[in-house]
Structure formats: C-alpha cells, structure tokens
C-alpha cells in the first residue's frame, strides 16, 4: 500500500472510532521489531509511552523498524514508516509529513501538545537522514 491509497482509505471513515480502529489494525500489521532492539539505545525520547526506532542503511536508502507499547502509537508509527521507509535521505528531507497527516485527518497526533512523541520520532528519522 502506498500513501495515496492510505489517504483514500481514510476518506471513507465517518467518526474517530472507525478511523482509529483502522490505525490500530495498521499497527497490528507493522513488521515486528526484534526484541533485542527494545533497549534504551533505540528509544525515542520525549514520549509518554515507550517508542523504539531502528534504522537500516542499504543501497543509499533507509529502512526503519519501530514499535511502541501503546497500541495507538504503534498504529501511528506504522503510518509514519509507510511515509518514510526505503527512501533516500534527500527524499526523506523533502517530505511534508504534516500535510500528509492533515489529509489523513490525523494531524492531532503531530501537535506539540499531544506529547505522544510522534514529533520526536519524525525528528529522529530526519536526524538519521542527515548523517547519511
């Protein structure tokens, strides 16, 4: 699935319950993160739940794996990784994630006051893009 399909899928939901049930489903299908990575080293700071993010660099592209112990956050991680995964650092830097989340109707998850750490996660992804 690409992001355009995702935006289309989200356009059918009529209330927050349907929308976030789908977010949970996306989280359930997230590629599992090896337990060995669930350490302080890979933790994203500034989250009320635990969030881990691990980059793999190959062929000039970055593949991320992530997880969280909060169900909704895990779903949001799945969406963020769908947006950023297997892109070049230049592509990563050019993505307007706020705009995509607005189209999905999920922008509340990226406001600084929500403190669910998703902004910190996006910042971390860009940081990895910068060092490559």
């Amino acid at each position, binding site marked *: 699935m690409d992001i355009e399909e995702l935006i289309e899928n989200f356009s059918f939901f009529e209330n*927050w*319950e349907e929308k*976030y*049930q789908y977010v*949970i489903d996306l989280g359930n299908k997230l590629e599992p993160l090896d337990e060995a990575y669930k350490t302080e080293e890979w933790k994203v700071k500034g989250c*009320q*739940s*635990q969030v881990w993010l691990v980059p793999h660099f190959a062929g000039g592209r970055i593949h991320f794996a992530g997880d969280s*112990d*909060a*169900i*909704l*956050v895990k779903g949001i991680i799945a969406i963020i990784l769908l947006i950023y995964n297997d892109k070049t650092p230049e592509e990563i830097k050019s993505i307007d994630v706020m705009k995509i989340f607005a189209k999905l109707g999920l922008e509340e998850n990226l406001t600084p006051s929500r403190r*669910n750490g998703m902004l910190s996660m996006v910042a971390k992804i860009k940081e990895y893009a910068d060092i490559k």
Partner: protein
Amino acid sequence: MYDVYKIRKDFPIFDVRINGKPVAYLDTTASAQKPQAVFDAMRRVYYEFYANPHRGTYYFADAITTAYEQARETVRQFINAREVREIVFTRNATESINLVASTWGLQNVRAGDEILISEAEHHANLVPWQHLCEISGAKLAVFPVADNGDYIEEEFLARLNEKTKLVAVSAMSNVLGTMFPIKKITAAAHGVGAKVLVDACQFAVHYPLDVQDIDCDFAAFSGHKIYGPTGIGVLYGKAEVLEKMPPYQFGGDMIDNVTFAKTTYADIPARFEAGTPASVQAVGMAEGIKYIERIGFADIVRHEEELIRYTNERLAEVPKLKIIGTAEKKGGVFSFAVGKIHPQDLAFVLNKENVAIRIGHHCAQPIVNRMGYNSLARASLGLYTTKEDIDALTAALLKAEKFFREE
C-alpha cells in the same frame, strides 16, 4: 443541604462545551478549578487598589498591604496556626519544601544524619531531600508502605532513630490516596528529637488541617489546589523554628538594614519573602479558602466520601480494571490500570469522550514503579465532582476497554 449542581454554577469553567458536550473534570489532584469569587477578588485588587505592598505611603499601597496581610491571617485560621508570622508565602508547595531544605536543612543536617520519608512521596517531597543528603553527606531513609498502599507503623518506627533529623511525609498520597497518620508520626519523630515536615498539598483540599493539633514543625501546600490561583503557596513553620532559620533568597523586602559593610535581615515571615510578592495571588488564595469555609469541610467531606463509595462501585464494572491504592484510610484519588492497555491509549479515548484524567508517573515515580507500573491512569475528585462525572468516566472506560480489547 449540599447541592453540588448549585455549587458548580460558581465555577465558570464548567460552562465550557467541547464539541458541544460538557467536560468531566477529574484531575483536581493536579490542580483544582476556581470559583468566580476568586477571579472577582483578584480583579478587585487590580481594578481598585493595585500597587506594590509594604513599600508605599499612599492609599493604594496601604490597601494592598492590608489585603496581603489579611490573606496571611485567612491562611493562619485555615490551618489553625498559633501566630500569623508562622505563615510564609511562597510560589507553591515545591518552593516551600525547597525553602526548608536549603535553609533549615543546610543549617542542621550533617554527615551521618538521616532524613526519613515514605516511599509514596511526590517528587517535591523527595528530590529536595535527596539533594540535601548528597551535599551534606546525610542518608535518605525510606519507609515502605503495604502493597495496598496502607501505612505500616512498624516499617516507619524501624527506620526512625536518634540519627533522624527530619521526617518528611505526605498527609495524603497523590497516587495512592493513602492518608498517613501524621499526628502519630509527628509524636514519634519528636520522641527522637527529629523535626517533621508535612506535605499537605492533597490533604488540605479535602480535610481540615490543624497544624497545632498535629504539632508538625513545617507544613506545605499550594494555592492552586485549594481552589485558588497558581503562583502562590504556603509554608507553615513553628515560630521558634523559623526564627532560627537563615534567609532563603536575598534582595528587597527581606532586609532590616543594608550597608555595604553589612546587612541585617527582617523578622519572620518577611525574611523568607524576598522581592515583590505575589500579592494578588495571595488574595486569590485567601478567597479560595473562604469559599471552602463558606461551604464547610463537614459537608465537603460527606459529599466526597459518598462519591468515593460511588466511584469504587462504578469502576468495579470495568473489566480488568485494577485500582492501585486501596488503603483503609484514603481520600478521593483513584489510580488504576485496565488490563494491559497503555494509560496513554486509555487517555486518548477518554479525551475523545471529554473525560479529563491524568496519566503517567504523577511526579511520584518510585511508588508507581514499586506497584509494578511505569505509568498509571488517575481520576481524582473535588468538591464540585458529580456522580454524572463518574458515570462519564465509567462509560468512557468501558468504551476504551472494548476498543482496545485484543480479539
């Protein structure tokens, strides 16, 4: 007759509708909402006689000084202190405790001494003592509570000895709701020559605090939790203890005489109130106290105890919900977990349903960890809380439990 619906009309914030629906405010433990009378009193100061207290020789300055000192007297009566000079105004309870740590503490606590606290203390009544121990070489001793949050006298007494210089304990835990028997604790501490500081932040909201009856040496609480404004707190200290303490901060208002060679300091409480004070906030806090007194603690306690019973009954309907802190003597604080659902997930659904609760470690990480959690959800009651608020909480929790139930 206690009419909670009439009382709620005194609180403008309860008129707010989010997405057309009222909000069930269940976070009074973090901060209380404020009645109109508090806003009116503060506005009256700004509109009619605002100036800097203690300094002027004109009408406004006299009026604000009188109002500020009357606020001090209102606080004295509220906690039944012997003298008005035993009331020190601070920014909040955290500052009150830090004041004691960095004045009385540095003066009296030495290497080899001990400071004794409970394991259920808020960080504000833990970290200042930990820091004092680090710089003085004293030891921080901690007495555990039971798994249900109950106070265990033997555990406390086992750690109290002639090395104990201070016992710092909460009158009511902000996580477990446990009410510690502070009068008995104080008597035992005095028996070994230790001083006692009571963190009264939660207790003072729900029950009458009598510092003479408790006989504690210090007590601390915040204005914003007793239905007053932010930016103002209280440190109570026995006059004979305060009198021997050095100043906390230095500057205006706390001096007696200043020359380049030497400065002498003002008497208590001015010695501890350097700089322009939060006079308007003090007036606001006094008005919050008067509001509580107009309703009366007898009726507030009766109302809240009925709500505690009702909340326990309703929360029992939520599958897999476990209340953390079920001490025999507890106030209206309900920390809980629902199965393995992350509190952040719970809070998301509750927010969608306009139910305001707190999640996290509640500034008391050690006790949350001790109970086996990193994070807990917490609902708490105030004098304006209704059964409908608890119904909204229960309905939202049932919805969340279903929403996150693993198939």
